[in-house]
């Protein structure tokens, strides 16, 4: 088992402007890791959708909380974690079928997607991408 390195840890207000800031910050990491254009696009899109979901839904409206973005790197895998301390995501809303198109896209593009959520501690979305694809 390899060693996981934290490449980025960023906390932003849950406001619309943070979607771009989060995307750009993660894109810099992906560029430094010399991932292909396709992977970079996939990661940028998934981060944008995940942060948009936090802004829209986690706190019942924009500007009422924060979103944390963590990027970890281990071997050829990149893990992006989007975390909030909002009101949690109902179990029925966690699948792409029930969720919006943003979740559908994340499920299509990420190699793995894990969602941990509770009404007390908020939601954590962990998306894994293969850098060598």
């Amino acid at each position: 088992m390899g060693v996981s390195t934290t490449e980025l840890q960023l906390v932003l207000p849950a406001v619309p402007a943070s979607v771009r800031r989060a995307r750009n910050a993660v894109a810099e990491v992906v560029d430094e890791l010399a991932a292909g254009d396709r992977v970079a696009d996939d990661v940028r899109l998934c981060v944008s959708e995940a942060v948009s979901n936090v802004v829209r839904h986690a706190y019942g409206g924009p500007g009422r909380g924060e979103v944390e973005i963590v990027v970890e790197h281990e071997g050829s895998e990149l893990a992006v974690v989007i975390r909030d301390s909002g009101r949690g995501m109902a179990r029925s809303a966690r699948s792409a079928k029930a969720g919006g198109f943003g979740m559908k896209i994340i499920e299509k593009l990420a190699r793995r997607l894990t969602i941990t959520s509770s009404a007390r501690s908020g939601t954590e979305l962990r998306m894994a991408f293969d850098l060598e694809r």
Partner: protein
Amino acid sequence: MRAGNSTPKQSDRPTVLRLAGELDLGSLDGLELRLDEAFGLGRPILVDVGDCTFATVDVLHFLVRAARDARERGLGFVVVLPYSASSVLRRLVLELAPDLAEFRIAPSLRVGSALLARPVRSAAPARVDDVRLRELRAMVWENASRLEALLASRDVLLLEKRRTLEQVHARRGASA
């Protein structure tokens, strides 16, 4: 509210709304304002996303709402997605969320204008229900995009060749 069949007048010159740069949730207020201005002109609308380098699902939802609003106002509406548009845009519209993208698309302003002249059917005018048709449309865009990239590379090579030949001729002329 007006729905149903509508044929934009041929004399209606479309309003072209050009979207550029990276667009996401944070861009929506500005987009809505620009769309309202465009609707205010009362002409058919072409939304050109050729200079848009990135977009999220929120932007697709915006385009879907815009198409619906245009239909209700009896205005034609086409999204111009050039073959050379950014790959993120093409994938989002054609591959990742084709069932969301319920608006007519055209590869150029010229084709878009021609589409505007066609009657708009009521309900879901732009919807391509059949999965296979969506796949074929995505393939058309993908292949045309590759072709355009190849032609652009060919043009660069031809230009370089021409410059080299001119330099060779100039050197020969100077030494003669």
